[in-house]
């Protein structure tokens, strides 16, 4: 086969990448501008090195507190998802019990219902428990997920049967087989699900917005949204907050992108 030239592809891809990157670059520039500079016509495309914006955003809203809230919620939700989804996925993929098929269909049905249908009753559950404006309100519903169960089941199904059969003959219990033999082998799936959960949990807006209205208990996502109301035109401070809020996930993604992409491609092509 003839070796094709790659430079035309590079031209288009680089142009597209510029469009992808430009808003981020622009956000970073404005986060370092003074307020008058940020409102100039025509726009000023260079920073004024106003580093105090980053201190101001921490001073004007409980950003540090919201950052901590987001970290705690994301970590708890991700750990919970990985444990509970992998347990259920293992059982669905490797164990035989009556009603397995029907139960799994029920899980799939949950997957197809839009999130808005859960919102009001969940809110009332939290209200009933006295959990409004608490971190557990953000964590509790998040640790359960039909998607993660479905995704990890695919990974468990792709492993050879002989593995657990041999271990079972040696007297290992299903829990031992799950923990010692199969779980290490679905590590790529766990990493991918972990990354996706971190991303979703870190960014989610509607549920946190509804359930936690006290700024001290907000996550970054809701905190930023409320910041917009308070400082309608103060884009430099707003963007300093945005940079702080989005940087951790971007860094994590840069480090882990291979696993995440593999996971998406895996479930995507089998979905």
């Amino acid at each position, binding site marked *: 086969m003839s070796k094709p030239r790659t430079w035309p592809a590079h031209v288009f891809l680089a142009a*597209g990448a510029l469009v992808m990157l430009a*808003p981020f670059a622009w956000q970073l520039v404005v986060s370092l501008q003074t307020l008058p500079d940020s409102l100039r016509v025509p*726009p000023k495309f260079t920073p004024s090195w106003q580093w105090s914006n980053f201190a101001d955003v921490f001073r004007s809203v409980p950003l540090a507190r919201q950052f901590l809230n987001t970290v705690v919620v994301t970590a708890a939700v991700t750990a919970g998802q990985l444990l509970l989804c992998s347990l259920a996925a293992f059982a669905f993929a490797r164990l035989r019990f009556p009603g397995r098929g029907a139960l799994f269909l029920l899980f799939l049905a949950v997957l197809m219902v839009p999130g808005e249908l859960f919102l009001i*009753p969940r809110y009332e559950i939290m209200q009933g428990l006295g959990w409004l404006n608490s971190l557990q309100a953000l964590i509790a519903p998040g640790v*359960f997920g039909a998607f993660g169960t479905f995704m990890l089941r695919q990974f468990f199904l792709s492993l050879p049967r002989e593995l657990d059969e041999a271990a079972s003959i040696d007297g290992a219990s299903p*829990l031992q087989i799950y923990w010692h033999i199969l779980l290490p082998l679905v590590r790529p799936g766990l990493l991918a699900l972990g990354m996706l959960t971190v991303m979703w949990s870190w960014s989610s807006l509607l549920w946190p917005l509804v359930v936690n209205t006290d700024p001290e208990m907000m996550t970054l996502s809701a905190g930023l949204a409320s910041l917009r109301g308070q400082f309608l035109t103060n884009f430099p401070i707003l*963007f300093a907050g945005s940079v702080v809020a989005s940087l951790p996930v971007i860094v994590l993604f840069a480090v882990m992108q291979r696993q995440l992409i593999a996971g998406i491609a895996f479930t*995507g092509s089998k*979905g």
Partner: protein
Amino acid sequence: MHSRREWAWGYLLIAPMALGLAVFYLWPIAQTLYLSMTESGVFGGYTWVGTANFADLFTDEEMYGALGNTLLYSVLVLAGVPLSIVVAALLNVPGLRGLSIYRTLYFLPVVTMPAAVGLTWSYLFNGDFGAINHVLGTVGIDGPYWLGDPDFAIYAIAVVGIWSSIGYNAVLFLAGLQGIPRHYYEAAEIDGAGRLRQFFRITLPLLTPTTFFVVVITMINALQVFDLVYLMIDLKSPALEGSRTIVYLFYETGFVQNQRGLAAAIAVILLVLILVLTAIQFRLQKKWVHYE
């Protein structure tokens, strides 16, 4: 194998997840269906009103507005799907270097918090000092007040919607492309088919299962758009009328005006809309999706 023990283990390991799904998913679905037939009282509690909420919504102009905006947004975002195919095809060029760098850059909007994304784009789309109108101005176009104008707001939001989904969809398409056996192309090359012909005669038809999947997922997500509207359109903006989506109306009704029963009815309508449109997609797939 001790099958009784296996049963017990099966139920035991599924129990935590099943319990959680029952409490936070299944019960809420049933509850929302029930609430959609009630009206919330001033002092809490609900009274049964039958189908009155739905009757109200079907004569409500705001509901029709939201429905129209949501459908327009979904069509616009779906029209952006071919862009992801092009990006994936370019990333799939044999011998291309820098794949992971491109992937990272195109994926950046996917991993970034929508709050940050929405705020940045609302700045870019600002009618006075926004960079977009500045760029349009340099080629002689007088841009509108995008996010303050009910006729333009939804288009601006759709631009952001497309921009933030290209990377995710391109990854799915790239996986689809890599599943196409090379020998098809080798045979085509022997027959003297050019690159473009190969793309239209081999790549696109063999990519239709992935395309179907991406179209369905993109549509379902687009029908539920909320974050971008909430972040880019100010509550008092006149543009809200032209950009209020169904989920936005649901949020406003249920959690700003506290009309829970009516909001539940809106959620049920959204569910029906998604089910109907997805069913139509599955019907239509027989006409254009080729499975090997």
